[in-house]
């Protein structure tokens, strides 16, 4: 049914529909789901490949090529279509001229900065004048969750105090990345409520990120633009561990554990 309907649409139109469909799907996925519109320059590049690909697929057989060309040939050769032809023949040079004009104007679109949000951590790193091994590093307070729940509650509460005095300005007091000063920042402070941040990470990774901040990131994460402060300059080691307890407690996420 669907197939028959499709085959009745001229090949050229079908090809155009496929291209438009891919374009719409890509914009919807990027700006809707990922919340980040694709920069126009990247989009142009993707669409170029898409068009070439679709064209090749449709003209793979000789028959296919003829079917694709048929409407264009008809336009030029069929006298009944002459008014349409005249309009098309007027529009095409105009469009080409307009395209050239806009391309010749200098681009005022800011360069695209792509960065990895969660880069692979180093296996060891230095902070507080010591070297930490990320493979074995654990939150020293996590064990109290089972062993001494009362003490654990107190540690979480201390973590909350540290958070509200230091982190809420950017990450927000709801931990959703929308603190009062977050709108002034790019890259944005991360949203800990989201399932894509701390819920995917181990406590040792968080410790590394918090202790060494933006400047501690590897190059693929563009450390020079991250405003995440270097917290070993402001907080003690155990304070970082406590604030990590608070992040998980407030959001209800669980830290990721090593797969056994």
């Amino acid at each position, binding site marked *: 049914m669907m197939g028959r309907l499709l085959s009745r649409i001229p090949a050229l139109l079908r090809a155009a529909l496929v291209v438009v469909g891919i374009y*719409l799907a890509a*914009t*919807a996925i990027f*700006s*809707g789901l990922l*919340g980040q*519109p694709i920069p126009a320059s990247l989009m142009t590049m993707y669409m170029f490949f898409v068009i070439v690909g679709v064209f090749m697929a449709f003209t793979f057989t000789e028959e296919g090529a003829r079917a694709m060309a048929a409407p264009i040939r008809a336009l*030029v*050769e*069929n*006298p009944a279509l002459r008014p349409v032809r005249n309009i098309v*023949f007027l529009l*095409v*040079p*105009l469009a*080409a*001229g307009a*395209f*050239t*004009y806009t391309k*010749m*104007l*200098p681009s*005022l679109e*800011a*360069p695209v*900065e792509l960065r990895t949000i969660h880069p692979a951590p180093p296996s060891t790193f230095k902070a507080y004048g010591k070297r930490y091994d990320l493979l074995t590093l654990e939150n020293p307070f996590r064990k109290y969750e089972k062993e001494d729940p009362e003490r654990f509650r107190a540690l979480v509460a201390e973590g*909350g*105090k540290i*958070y*509200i*005095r230091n982190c*809420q*300005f*950017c990450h*927000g*007091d*709801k931990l*959703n990345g*929308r603190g*009062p*000063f*977050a*709108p*002034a*920042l*790019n890259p*944005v402070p991360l949203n800990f409520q989201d399932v894509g941040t701390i819920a995917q990470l181990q406590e040792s990774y968080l410790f590394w990120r918090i202790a060494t*901040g*933006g*400047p501690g990131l590897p190059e693929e994460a*563009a*450390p*020079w*633009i991250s*405003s995440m*402060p*270097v917290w070993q*300059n*402001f907080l003690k080691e155990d304070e970082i561990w406590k604030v990590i307890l608070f992040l998980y407690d407030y959001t209800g996420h669980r830290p990721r554990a090593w797969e056994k």
Partner: protein
Amino acid sequence: MAARRFISPLWSCLAFTLAFGLSTLVLPVTTVQAEAGNAERGKLIYARRCALCHGEEGDGAGPGAERLNPPPRDFTEGQYKFKTTGFDDIVPNDADLFRMIRDGMPGTAMPGWGDMLSDQDIRDVIAFIKTFAGLEEEKPTIQVDYGRQVPSSPESIAKGRALFHEGDRCAECHGAEGRGDAIKKLKDDGGARTWPRNLTKPWTFRASNDPKDIFTRITVGIPGTQMPSFADPKSKKRLTIEERWHVANYVASLAKTDKVPRPENTVVKVMKVEGALPTAPDDPAWEKLPSTTFLLLPQLIAKTRFFTPSNDTITVRAAYNDTALAILLEWDDRTRSIPGDPKAEEIADPGMGEDMVAIQFPVAVPKGMKKPYFGMGDGAHPVNLWQWRSGTADKPQSVALANARGFARIESRDPASAGLTARGRYDKGRWRVVFTRPLAASSPDKDITFQTGQFIPIAFAAWDGSNGETGSKHTMTTWYWFLLEPDTGLRPLVSALIVAFLFGAAELWWARSAGARKPEGEA
């Protein structure tokens, strides 16, 4: 000043259809009667979500409070700022509290909770916070009388303007242009520093700048602060209901929409001008150049940090000619800070410094992605810092030049050696400062060279000396872009014409040859 997310129209259409479909499905189930707030349940929510700022005891002294201005509300006082009950009735409507808690209070640390707490949760927490001041049984008795709303019109705005200025009614605190440039030092009942609202920045209004909200504020005042009620018959500056609508319409008209920071505006476009550059801060030529406004945040990454800024935006314009460039920085500042001047000292916080502003450029324009660290560069990537200082009672304004490789490695240099100048002017709550420098660096290994068509990283910092902003305590931006627009002349137009002509010619040729092949078609 919520960050507005760009959502493609197609996507929002889809989401809307989906949401609409779902809501028609679940609507019959969810229309339950609103339940009265339950203070017991509210207590649990409060302990988890609110106590960190408002304090376990509701006294506004939670661990977060010390670094916040305005400070979190002290609920034991039972006094609320944004209410719609009469100025002489301390009890707010539940709906007033509901609105502040659900939507939050822009320009403060108080966020909107509507996305995390259900309506019932909010009613519960309201029932609980009222117990701190024994308000649970109290009912408000006097409501704001709105009379008949006067719709906004040029006449109403003109009347409102006159009333705003009459006897310095509002201008005394909110300034002649509404920028909140106070002529006296204001404190709230708890002793915390308060700044009169900058009425040209609607995004900092706690309760929106809709005329109805402004009317409410003028009628009730903002309890606990020096913002008075203008409905109080005892007030010498009292206004009638109709007059209050005129003033509200005028205040709403002050919103400077061309200076709203937008997340998509990341480039300072520097235009080519023929002849002399505008170098005076109030040269009318500036108005013709495009402006870009950036959000400032307090310096939170290096010792000593700063948490309580008095300003949140900076506006930039720039132009260049064959040899030099000029940059105009414009930012609202409620106080002209002149250390050593008794009048300025009176309004300022103790230890006043000069007002200052700075621009940061990389010394070498990065080839790839890699920039210097946005906080004053790093060991391998130094930055240029251009700083203007407003002067003291016995020292005129000045310009400074430094190169930095991080916070701790700053080398002061002679600004004259680089040809750097800066001149500023303060007028009615706003600084305007113009920097100029030749395009070419006199020492290319130490100073940036400006070339057209290049995206150059740029960042800004500002100091309000009366707000305790000195040294590392200041506001700042992260990296944005600075672009000297290349002068293309007629080239694009000529090329476009040639391309259009070639296409047209090819089409004609094609049509002709097709016609020649099928002469019978022409019959």
